[in-house]
């Protein structure tokens, strides 16, 4: 491929949207529109003739590199088959705050955590765990977030009420055999019942 075609390929790959013809021409001020057109043709033909998994496609008045449809299914299947992803500690914290304080606005979350959670909120939203549930009164009418049905499903809950209340957390955490790290005070009755605890049924 000539160097203009390579430049176009790199730009089309990196751009989040289709690029209009005249913007592509602006990439290299030295090149004539005809040269750009020829380079686009070369790139398209290269993908088609040489046998590639992607194709150069005209969309509206612009151009875009897209994967060929015959591979879509295999890509989706592979994605489903892989090891499930875990949420980061920061994401879990944000999710926990939203679950317990909903409806809640972004500024309140930031206040509790001490850092802004904009990116995390966006990613939790994309994953369908939270959604916008309304707008707060007051200046700017900020968005209010809450958890979704998907959230309940993911954590195996039937209602939000099944989440332990905050004052019950200690017990729930203790009972789940939580590790190290958890600094629950060893209340005498807890220790006692733990000692008396029957072996789990097999």
């Amino acid at each position, binding site marked *: 491929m000539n160097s203009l075609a390579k430049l176009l390929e790199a730009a089309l790959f*990196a751009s989040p949207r289709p690029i209009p013809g005249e913007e592509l021409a602006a990439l290299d001020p030295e090149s004539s529109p005809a040269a750009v057109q020829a380079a686009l043709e070369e790139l398209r033909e290269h993908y088609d003739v040489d046998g590639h998994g992607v194709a150069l496609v005209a969309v509206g008045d612009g151009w875009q590199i897209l994967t060929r449809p015959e591979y879509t299914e295999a890509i989706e299947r592979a994605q489903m088959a892989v090891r*499930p*992803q875990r949420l980061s500690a920061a994401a879990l914290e944000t999710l*926990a705050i939203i679950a317990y304080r909903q409806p809640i606005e972004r500024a309140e979350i930031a206040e509790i955590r001490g850092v802004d959670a904009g990116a995390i909120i966006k990613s939790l939203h994309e994953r369908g765990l939270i959604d916008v549930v309304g707008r707060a009164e007051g200046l700017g009418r900020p968005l209010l977030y809450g958890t979704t049905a998907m959230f309940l499903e993911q954590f195996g809950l039937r209602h939000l009420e099944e989440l332990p209340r905050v004052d019950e957390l200690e017990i729930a955490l203790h009972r789940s055999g939580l590790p190290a790290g*958890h600094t629950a005070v060893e209340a005498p009755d807890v220790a006692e019942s733990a000692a008396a605890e029957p072996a789990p049924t097999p």
Partner: protein
Amino acid sequence: MTAPGLSPLEGAFVVDVDGFNGPLDLLLSLIRDEQLDVYDIPVARVCQQFVDRMHALKLNEAAEYLEMAARLIRIKAQMLLPRKEGDEGWEDPRAELVRRLLEYQQMREVVDVLERLGDDRRNRFGRTFVQQAAAPPPAPLALSLTDLLVAVDRVLRTANRPTVHEVVPRAIDVDGAIGLVRAVLALREQARWRDVVRADAEPWEVLSGLLALLELAKRSELSLTQPRPFADVEIRRELAGQAA
């Protein structure tokens, strides 16, 4: 110094005048500027220059810089103490400072490496376009309630304000107690009275717990057994009831 100013992301107050990342950084640049041997620092002179630079950079208030200045003065004083010729037990008072400077200098070199690697990577774009039709669904999530509860616990411990504590007194809270019993049984197959009602529970909590257990037993979510009179009641999760 390669240090650019603070990015707004760092937010908090960090002394970063003229790109200095702290007293060690300032001390190192001093040693480098004066072309001194780090293994044989002329403490008296370095101490004076350090303090001069602190004043010049208006760092007088910064605790870390003051602490370093104090440390230098202490080392200077120790160096002046008379010692016997060939004293085996003598340890150079500068040793600890030298160790820290070298350690810090190594990290500065790693910073250079990271900076170069980061720039190389930043000079390459990844795919930013996400194909809507062909976009694969996100990978399934592995989430557990325990993870979430641990996160709540963490939030409570580190929250700026303990705003999450809201204890609302209620006459009798059967629903709340049901939630608690379910939460306990979600984590264990078996439980005891003490697991669902605290030893120091208020009367209304005891009543709530009792009613919750009876209610859940009625709904076949759990079974209650008492091996002998006055023994602890055993609460057992009923799988059949849950599936129903």
